[in-house]
């Protein structure tokens, strides 16, 4: 574009050599009035015009160079959580994101949401409604954000995503793997896909996901801060555990959503299961599940006699028997919802129940950027001496104040016995 302007300006000056100097701003109009200046002024004018012409050419070259350079700088290459190399045109104006919303908010800031044009509503509004409504109160476009569907329900729609014309799609690893056809269609439409993965509970993937989001959203400093914070805290926990040198404890984690009469899901090799194993404990679910998650037989739990039990709760609606944690929980409410679990048939004889090591913990703490808080809490129960000076609640409060637009409150991790 600038080239043709250059040519036009040049020809303008060629034709105008014997006429009065026309200012650069009026290049496109030809003034017939000033067509013939006197001859002696012509020589002076010609010299002036020649140097001006050269300067102008130089300016235009520089402008052109700046534009060209700007075009190169606009394409960013990054490595996402699965190690895929993705090219994204920054700055992005339209983003579609399908999971890990608190992480996105932490990395991109509240203002990052201005660029979001679509999301999967079910994994946030459906799974954590109380948390969602708090964020919706401070993020203007969140409440009416278009829904692109949820892969678990089979409603994930490549069509809707393409119709929203995003510059980038952030997608969780489990959606990426579940929908081969849809992702091919999206990539074929020219939309880059960046996979983020906090579910695997692997340090590298947490860091890669965080950094990738920062690179795309243009908030690299913030992302780097968060990544270093996480890495520091993560390694801190592991170092303390290494120094503690205590025997492995047997841990049982169960999703406490449907009430004590139903055995909820346990996890192995992912989410809570991976977390527990990383912390050097024995995950009761290992070897008992056909896949990465599922319910364990109630008899097996009693037979294994775990030493520490965590029941994962949250702020679900329409789940009256669930364990309640979250922004609106109080210690009494949480303990009230947890007690029926401790009173399950045969549980009174378990080591964990007898020693009071049965805890409620927010399910939304795992597979996030702040799961180091959960790690600290669980590690504190497994190795009390090594973690005497660590306060997980304080860590979580500090994280909220620095990186999240909603205020910290409520109960997120609590033992049954005060």
């Amino acid at each position, binding site marked *: 574009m600038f080239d043709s302007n250059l040519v036009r300006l040049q020809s303008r000056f060629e034709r105008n050599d014997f006429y009065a100097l026309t200012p650069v701003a009026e290049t496109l109009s030809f003034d017939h009035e000033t067509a013939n200046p006197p001859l002696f002024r012509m020589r002076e004018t010609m010299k002036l015009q020649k140097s001006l012409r050269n300067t102008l050419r130089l300016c235009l070259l520089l402008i052109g160079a700046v534009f060209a350079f700007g075009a190169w700088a606009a394409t960013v290459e990054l490595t996402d959580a699965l190690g895929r190399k993705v090219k994204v045109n920054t700055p992005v104006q339209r983003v579609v994101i399908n999971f890990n919303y608190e992480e996105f908010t932490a990395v991109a800031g509240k203002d990052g949401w201005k660029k979001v044009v679509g999301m999967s509503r079910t994994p946030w509004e459906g799974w954590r409604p109380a948390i969602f409504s708090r964020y919706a109160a401070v993020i203007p476009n969140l409440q009416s954000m278009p829904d692109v569907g949820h892969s678990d329900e*089979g*409603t994930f*729609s*490549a*069509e809707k995503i*393409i119709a929203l014309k995003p510059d980038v799609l952030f997608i969780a690893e489990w959606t990426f793997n579940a929908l081969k*056809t*849809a992702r091919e269609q999206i990539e074929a439409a020219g939309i880059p896909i960046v996979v983020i993965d906090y579910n695997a509970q692997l340090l590298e993937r947490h860091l890669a996901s965080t950094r990738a989001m920062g690179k795309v959203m243009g908030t690299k400093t913030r992302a780097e801060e968060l990544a270093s914070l996480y890495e520091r805290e993560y390694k801190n926990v592991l170092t303390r555990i290494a120094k503690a040198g205590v025997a492995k404890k047997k841990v049982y984690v169960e999703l406490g959503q449907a009430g004590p009469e139903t055995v909820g899901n346990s996890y192995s090799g992912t989410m809570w299961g991976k977390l527990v194993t990383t912390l050097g404990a024995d995950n009761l679910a290992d070897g008992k599940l*056909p896949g*990465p998650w599922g319910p364990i037989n109630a008899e097996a739990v009693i037979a294994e006699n775990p030493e520490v039990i965590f029941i994962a709760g949250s702020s679900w609606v329409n789940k009256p028997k669930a364990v309640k944690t979250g922004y609106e929980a109080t210690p009494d409410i949480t303990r009230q919802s947890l007690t029926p679990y401790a009173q399950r048939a045969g549980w009174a004889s378990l080591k964990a129940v007898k020693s009071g090591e049965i805890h409620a913990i927010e399910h939304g703490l795992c597979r996030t950027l702040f799961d180091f808080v959960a790690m600290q809490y669980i590690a504190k129960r497994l190795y009390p001496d090594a973690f005497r000076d660590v306060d997980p609640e304080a860590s979580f409060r500090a994280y909220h104040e620095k990186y999240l637009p909603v205020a910290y409150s409520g109960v997120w991790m609590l033992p049954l016995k005060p």
Partner: protein
Amino acid sequence: MTPAATVDAVTVAYRRAASRRVTVMLVALAALLLGVLLDAATGPALLPLGAVAGSVLGYPSDSAVQAIVWSIRLPVALTAVSVGAALGLSGAIMQTILNNPLASSYTLGISAGAGFGAALVIVLGASLPVPEAYAIPLNAMLFAGVACAGVYLIGGARAATAEGLVLAGIALLFLFQALTALLQMIASPESLQQVVFWLFGSLQKSTWPKLWVMLAVLGACTPFLVRDVWGLTALKLGDARASALGVNVRSLRIRSFVLISGLTGVAVAFVGTIGFVGLVAPHVARMLIGEDQRGFLPASAFMGAVLLSLASVASKTIAPGAIFPIGIVTSLIGVPFFIWMVLRTRRAYW
């Protein structure tokens, strides 16, 4: 009656039947085109009709619309048509060779066998050398063939009476359904989700390469059917009479079974088990056009295609913005429609 008048009677009657055949086919073709266009025009993105029409007809349009119409909606629409045709055709052949109005690849366990083959790969197959994208369709076709062979062998290969084959088919249906349920029990949650997709049927995973494969299989079956068209009609007279007329009944049945397992296997492999189309399409075709296989077979294919195309449109418009599972739609919409047609028809057609 003068000789001139009698010449007219037979030829007139024949010409009338032939022109009726042609009319039905043309109307079906028109309905098919309409179905495809409607299918391309509906979807979760709720694109305006003009934009879709422009993109289909080749006018330059928005890149997002282009991407949606050409890489998502058109493959779905055309796959609906070809799968519907394959299912209708295989149902027609099956009803003819087994002489049973309830025969279809769904009711006789062929689809269930194909579904079981697919589920087997999904649940157990991480250790196979072949990439999953190929292993699933191949195994589905393999087990469709196994089911067909089972129906044929259990039904009595020597006598191969229609009743025996139908009983064998029903037994296999229950067997494969039970085996699939067993797989569901031991499956991990992600595999379970995929297996359920197979059992519900879904057109949303259609792509152009899969479409070409489907059309290739349909095309490959055509010359065989053209050869056997009168033999199949003769089967309607009963095995004894057909044999006396010179038709090799046993080899005709075997050939037809091979065709059925190919058509059903490919259809199920790419789209999951969709019931009812293979059962209803031949009955509708029979009501409209009669049992002469020259018209009956293509008409069944057309009816199947129209039925599935309309079901695809319905599955997208029932809940605007989401997609209703198509297997459910074919049954919920097909059954009342079928009942209406049965009540309407004045003459017996079976």
